[in-house]
C-alpha cells in the first residue's frame, strides 16, 4: 500500500506564503488569547486544593454547597462536575499547611448527610511549591530548547537550528493558545504534553532537514526551493504515517481515556496536528527566509573536505616518516 505518488514532486514552496500568513494569524491569535483570557493554571502551578468526590447516584451539588458553607476551610471553594453527573471536584484556592489535618476526612465529615459518596482524590499544593513548579517548568523548557539549538547548529548549520526552534515556538504557542481558548486546567500533565509536542515537532523537522542536507550535499541543483519541495515530498509518506499512527493512539486516549486524561490528550491532539503542519509548511521555508544559501554551503563543505584531506595527507606523511 502506498499513499503518495512517488514519481511526483509536490510544490510546497508555492504554498509557503499562504502558510506563513496562516501561521502568523494563528500565533498572533494565540498571543491575544493568552493575553486576554490567559492560561487557567491548575493547582500544580497556582497552588490550592482539589477534592474529588464520587456519589452513588447523581451528585447533589446544591446540598453540597450548603454543607461546605458551614466549614471555613472550604471558603471560596467551587464545585463542578467531573466527567459524569455523579462525580464532582471541589476546588479551593486555599491550602492547609498543618500536616495533621486530613482534608479528605474533613470533607467526608462536612458532606455527611448529602448521600452516599466516597473521596477519590485529594491533592494539596502549597502556594510556594506551585510557584516553584511553574518556574522550574519554564526553565527546563527554555534550557531544553537551547540545548537543541546548539546540537542542531553543530550537526547542520545555524540556520537549520534557528528554523527548527522557530517551528517549535510556533507549535508551542499555538498549543498554548488552544489551552487558553478552551480554558483547560494547566497542570503538570499538560506540561508533559507540551514537552511531548516539542519532541514530536522537532523529530519531524529534523527528519526533513536531514533530507534537505542530503539533497544539498548530493545534487548539483542549487535552487533551494526545488530542493526543499523534493525533500518534503520524499519524506511526506513518513511524516503522514508517523503522525497518523500517533494520532490514533492519542485520539483513543482522548475518547476513551476518561476525564482525568482529557487535558493531556487534548494538548497532544492539537500539538501533533500543528507540529505536522509546521514541519511541512513552516520549518523548511524558514530556511529560505533566513537566507540559507546552497552555493555557500557547498563551498563550506568543500572547504571542510579539503581540510580533512590535508590532515589525512599530513598524517600519511607523518606515518611514513617523511616529516
Amino acid at each position, binding site marked *: *500500500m*502506498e499513499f503518495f505518488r*512517488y514519481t511526483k514532486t509536490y510544490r510546497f514552496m508555492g504554498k509557503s506564503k499562504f502558510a506563513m500568513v496562516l501561521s502568523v494569524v494563528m500565533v498572533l491569535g494565540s498571543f491575544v488569547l493568552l493575553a486576554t483570557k490567559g492560561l487557567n493554571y491548575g493547582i500544580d502551578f497556582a497552588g490550592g486544593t482539589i477534592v*474529588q468526590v*464520587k456519589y452513588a447516584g447523581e451528585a447533589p451539588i446544591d446540598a453540597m454547597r450548603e454543607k461546605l458553607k458551614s466549614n471555613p476551610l472550604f471558603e471560596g471553594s467551587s464545585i463542578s462536575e467531573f466527567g459524569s453527573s455523579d462525580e464532582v471536584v471541589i476546588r479551593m484556592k486555599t*491550602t492547609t*499547611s498543618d*500536616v*495533621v489535618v*486530613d482534608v479528605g*476526612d474533613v470533607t467526608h465529615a462536612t458532606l455527611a448527610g448529602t448521600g452516599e459518596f466516597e*473521596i*477519590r*482524590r*485529594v*491533592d*494539596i*499544593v*502549597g502556594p510556594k511549591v506551585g510557584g516553584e*513548579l511553574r518556574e*522550574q*517548568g519554564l526553565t*527546563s523548557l527554555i534550557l*531544553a530548547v537551547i*540545548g*537543541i539549538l546548539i*546540537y*542542531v547548529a553543530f*550537526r547542520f548549520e545555524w540556520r537549520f537550528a534557528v528554523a527548527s526552534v522557530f517551528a517549535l515556538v510556533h507549535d508551542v504557542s499555538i498549543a498554548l493558545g488552544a489551552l487558553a481558548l478552551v480554558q483547560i486546567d494547566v497542570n*503538570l*500533565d499538560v506540561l*508533559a*504534553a507540551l*514537552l*511531548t509536542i*516539542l*519532541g*514530536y515537532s522537532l*523529530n519531524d523537522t*529534523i*527528519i526533513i532537514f*536531514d533530507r534537505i542536507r*542530503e539533497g544539498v550535499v548530493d545534487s548539483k541543483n542549487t535552487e533551494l526551493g526545488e530542493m526543499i519541495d523534493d525533500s518534503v515530498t*520524499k519524506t511526506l*509518506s513518513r511524516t503522514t*504515517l*508517523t503522525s*497518523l499512527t*500517533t494520532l*490514533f*493512539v*492519542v485520539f*483513543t*486516549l482522548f475518547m*476513551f*481515556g*476518561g476525564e*482525568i*486524561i482529557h487535558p*493531556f490528550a487534548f494538548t497532544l491532539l492539537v500539538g501533533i496536528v500543528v507540529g505536522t503542519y509546521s514541519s511541512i509548511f513552516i520549518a523548511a521555508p524558514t530556511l529560505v527566509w533566513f537566507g540559507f544559501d546552497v552555493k555557500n554551503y557547498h563551498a563550506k563543505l568543500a572547504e571542510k573536505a579539503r581540510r580533512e584531506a590535508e590532515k589525512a595527507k599530513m598524517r600519511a606523511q607523518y606515518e611514513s616518516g617523511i616529516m
Partner: protein
Amino acid sequence: MLLGVKTDEAVISRMKSIAASIKHYTQKKDILIDELAAHEENVTFTVLDSDEIAGIKNYLAEMSGVVVSVEGERLILTLTPEEVQRTKELSVAQAIETIRNRLDQFGLSEPVVARQGEEKILVQLAGIKTLEEEQRARELISRAAKLELMAVDEERNARVHAMTHADAASYGDVILSDANNPQLLYLVKEIPILDGGMLTDAQVGFDQNNRPVINFSLNAEGAELFGDFTGRNVGKRLAIVLDGKVYSAPNINERIGGGSGQISGNYSVLEAKDLAIALRSGALLAPIELLEKRSVGPSLGADSIQASMVALIGGFVAVILFMMVYYKMAGVIANIALIANLLIILAVMSLFGATLTLPGMAGIVLTVGMAVDANVIISERIRELLREGVSIHKAIEDGYANAMRAILDANITTLIAAVVLYVYGTGAIKGFAVTISIGILASMLTAILGTHGIYQMLESKIAKSKNKKFWFGIKG
C-alpha cells in the same frame, strides 16, 4: 507528601538555648544579670556589676558563631550569617533524620524520607494500610516532641489569670496552659531548666492507677542540672512541658538525683507509644509544615489507569495492524521491534519501581511514536531504493545507512531535552524524562540493530522470491 521546614524557627530556638546557657552560667558563678531575653535577631541582657563583663565575654567567646557587642552594661549577642545558615541547614538535616527515625520505629517497612531542594523534605509512606494508621503516622512526623522542664514562677503564679502575655514577658515568664484543661494556666520561667536534647530514653510505663505514662531518663549533664535545680527549689513546682503544654506540675519534695522522670497525661496506650517514639528520636529543631500532598483513592487510581491502559493498548493494536497492512512483511518486522521496545520500556520501568503516572504515559506515547517513526523511516528508505531498481542487498544496506543519520539526529535532540528535564524537573516531570530516555535507547536498539539483523537473516530469501509486494508492500 512534601514537607517544609520552618528554618527561621530553628534560629529562634537557637537564641533561646543561648539564653538558657547564659542563665545557667551566671547562676553558677553568682553573677547578677537582669532583663535576659531571647529575640528573633539577638539575645540581650544587662550585667549589674560591670566588673563581671570581662568574665562573661570570655565565657561567650567559647560559643562558636556568636558575636558579642557591649553597650554600657548591656550585652547584645547576635549570630554570624554563617552560623544562621548552619543552624538552618542543621535543622533540615536533623528533621530528615528524626522523621526517618520515627517512621522506622513506627514500624513502616520502607518509608521514603528524602531531601528536596533547600528546605523541603519528601515523605512517602509506603506500606500504610489503614487511614487511622496514616493519621497516626502524620501526627508522629509533625510532632515537635519538644520536652522542657520549666520552673513555675511561684511568686506570681497566683495572678496568672489576670496577666497578659506581655506582662508575663516583662518578668521573663511565659503563660502556658494545661494539656488536659486549657482553662488552667501556669506562669513559668521562659528559659527552661533543661530540654529534650538531654534525654537518653523514653519508654511507656504505667502509674499506680494503671494509666499509661512515659518514663524518661536524662544524660549526665541533664541529671546534674536537674539535681542542682531540684536541690535549690524544694517546695516549689516543676512544670513538665511538652510542645508548649504543661502535662504536669508536681511539687519538688526533695533533691532528685539519678536523672529520671515521668510524664503523665490523659492518653491511650497507643498515643503514649507514639509519644515515646517521638521523644526517643528527639525533638524537631524547627516545626514542619505541609507543602504538597497528593493522594489518589484506590478506586480512582485503578479505573483511570485502566481506562487509559485500554485506550493505549487499543491505539497500539491499531498501529500494529496498520503497519502490517501498509508495509506487509516489512511491517511485521517493524512490529516485532515495536513490541520488543514496549516490553523493554515496561521492564526497565518496573525495575526502577516507577509507577505509571500521566506524564509517564506521555513518555510511553512519545517513545512508541518515535519507535514507529524509526521503522517507518527505514522502510521508506528501502522502498525508495527498490523503486530506483537497486538490488535487495544494496537497498537494505543503503536504506539503513541513510535512515541512520536522521534517526540518530532526531533521537539525540530528544535525548538532550530529556536530560535537561531530568536535571531541572521534579517528581512527575523527572519520571517523564526517565521514560523517554529509556524509550529512546530501547528504540534505537530495536529499530536499528534488531530489525537490521532480521533483514540480514532473511535477505537471501527476499532476494530469491523477488516479490516486493509481499515483502515491502510496493509494486514490482
